[in-house]
């Protein structure tokens, strides 16, 4: 049957075109379309916050420098992944990631929950000269990040574009995007002082993005907002946009290690 049908199709190029489109279209449609419509694909997390303009700029630098080629941001439901990196990643945690940066390779460790694990000083030193803090590291140095001033004047436009693809940035967030970026990278004291002149309003920043927003001179250089500030701000928020993962997985703890069950990766079997 298939041979007879094909025998007819291969005599007509448009039939072949149609056949290829239909046959190849099925798989993607069945797998992708339901992900947009089935509600429990992405968990509810009311505390989930959006990236601040500075963190978003840092995320762009993370992509620009190709960090994703060597670092994943996806902790799998395997026991050793959870023991090494923390609670396994939930879909909701990358809900506002356009695009996602789950990654495909771990030349370096996973970064999904690296936020808060190291100090700003450590990150800045590590990015400037990885081997000064981890002698055996094979990570490249990113010295130009401290030298480059961050472009902040267009951040409002970035927030608008993000809102157009579905991220709930408010009008106030968009309006104050540039000032918020400067404020987040300023010393808290200075930021408060600047608030009076409405150049950099740290108070407004925390109000808009939540109490957990870190205001810091990330790169240790208060004079200027550099690309290093942005990247470190981004690294420090990784895994801290919502508590959903910790909350859900702590609740599941009494059922004897959900991670172990899902992993199917018996510790005894892997010890050889």
């Amino acid at each position: 049957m298939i041979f007879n049908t094909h025998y007819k199709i291969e005599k007509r190029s448009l039939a072949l075109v149609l056949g290829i489109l239909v046959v190849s279209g099925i798989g993607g449609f069945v797998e992708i379309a339901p992900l947009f419509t089935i509600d429990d694909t992405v968990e509810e997390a009311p505390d989930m916050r959006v990236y601040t303009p500075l963190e978003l700029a840092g995320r762009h630098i993370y992509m620009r420098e190709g960090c994703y080629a060597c670092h994943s941001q996806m902790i799998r439901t395997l026991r050793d992944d959870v023991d090494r990196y923390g609670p396994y990643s939930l879909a909701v945690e990358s809900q506002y990631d356009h695009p996602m940066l789950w990654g495909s390779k771990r030349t370096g460790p996973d970064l999904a929950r690296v936020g808060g694990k190291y100090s700003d000083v450590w990150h800045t030193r590590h990015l400037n000269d990885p081997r000064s803090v981890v002698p055996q590291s094979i990570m490249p140095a990113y010295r130009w990040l401290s030298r480059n001033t961050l472009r902040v004047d267009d951040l409002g436009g970035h927030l608008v574009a993000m809102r157009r693809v579905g991220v709930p940035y408010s009008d106030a967030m968009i309006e104050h995007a540039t000032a918020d970026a400067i404020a987040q990278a300023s010393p808290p004291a200075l930021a408060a002082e600047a608030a009076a002149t409405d150049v950099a309003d740290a108070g407004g920043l925390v109000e808009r993005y939540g109490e957990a927003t870190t205001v810091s001179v990330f790169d240790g250089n208060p004079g200027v907002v550099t690309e290093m500030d942005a990247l470190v701000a981004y690294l420090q928020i990784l895994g801290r946009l919502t508590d959903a993962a910790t909350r859900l997985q702590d609740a599941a703890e009494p059922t004897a290690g959900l991670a172990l069950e899902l992993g199917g990766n018996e510790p005894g079997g892997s010890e050889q």
Partner: protein
Amino acid sequence: MLAQLTASDRRLARLVLYIVAAAGLLIAVIARNDPMSVHGMIIALFAVVLFMILYSARHAPEPGADRLGEYYDDPSKVGIVLSLIWGVIGMAVGDWIAWLMAFPELSPDAAWASFGRLRPVHTSGVIFGFGGNALIATSFHVVQRSCRARLAGQFSPWFVLLGYNLFCVLAASGYIMGITQSKEYAEPEWYADIWLVVVWVTYLVLYLRTLARRQEPHIYVANWYFLAFILVVAVLHIVNNLAMPVTLAGAKSYSAFSGVQDAMTQWWYGHNAVAFFLTAGFLGMLYYYLPKRAGRPIYSYRMSIISFWGITFLYMWVGSHHLHYTALPHWVQTLGMTFSIMLIVPSWGSAANALLTLNGAWHKVRTDATLRFMMVAAVFYGLSTFEGSFMAIRPVNSLSHYTDWTIGHVHSGALGWVAFIIFGSFYCLVPWLWKRESMYSNKLVEVHFWLALAGIVIYLISLWNAGITQGLMWRTYNESGTLTYSFLDSMIAMIPYYVARGIGGFLYFLGACVALYNVIMTIRTAADNATTAGVAASPDLPVSRLETVAVARSTAP
């Protein structure tokens, strides 16, 4: 190269070049605060260079109408040379960054030269530059022979080839300036993506119009695959690259999808770039050049049919095997795994069909390195599709994923299958197109074969070992129930393997240099011959003579 262009072709070419140059200048001006302006200048410069080439031949006489009775191969010739140049560049960058993984301090303190920016130059350079140009060049050649029809048009083949290369230049130059949307194998930003859509639609129309001219009732197998390659890559490219630019005067855009939906869309794209760019198109090559070189018909028409529809249907389901144990819903992971395993059937069907075609020609495989390239390509196709299905099994994937085993697997397909079928096809095609009896040096073909094979073996063994070691170290627990090795321990264990990989890659790169040299020397000696003596007999007969091509043609079931 331009001898066959008529006055109206040239007029159209000039018009398009004016438009491209103007668009480039416009981008350069409106995006002056953004790296995108450099791209505007590159686009304008690209158009100016082509314009000068066109201008230098302005006094060429109008071609005779008899050209329409022959095949049009000038774009294929240029495509082959461009493909090899991209191959050498892409492999050089690949080997350089391989060494950076063992010796990071070799990298200069410059953003453009850092590992993260050069890596996509390597991947795009070899996949799109080397592979894509080879696909365009050979598809133009194959569709004409298997349809016994001349390409439908003289301008559009050049538009497809050169427009595609402009896309490749924008991609590679963008990465080193930091322009990327970070989607693996789909890194170029929105404006380059739109340009590729224009080029690709032209490619599809050209291909269909040429098929419509065929003097054969049936469409030959190779064309099924080339057609699937063109069609599905268009769909994948458009869907995965849907994005919202921040401004029309800047490069940066935000993907239309986020999180889990983006991950699934990306790997639906990513794995089907493997399927329809790196497999379907190259199977088209295999189905034409291997039987032709071996002088044997395709072993089984029915196996071709089953494999073709099997690959077209099953591959689109398997992308989710890149996302095992992640936040992607479990049912999608399971579907991906299941279809990945089923995929062995059509994959091995194609590999077996190719190898069985060689029955009765194995003595040629022993003496003819060109045919041996294609035979080894079929073997690596079989091996890497088996490996891929194996790694898609969830528990196996729990060990292999995120490790260098994946990189080893990709290169088993890319170096062993894709590049070997390209080299085999080029060594067939170059003497035919430039009307020589054989390559400039068959010895160099032999040298290339062994350099490349040695390179692959070193590369694969080192990365298989690296990946499995890494995977096992990550999951090893000590008796007190805690992890035995830190991440750093596993990373340090990789360094000897990275060095070995650098050596294997270097051998492979040397082989590609030998190929480029051999092809250039063949072209140069062909030019010398053409001026002195008559051209050598070519097995590649013009359409006007209506001889049947000596390739197996579809027969009734």
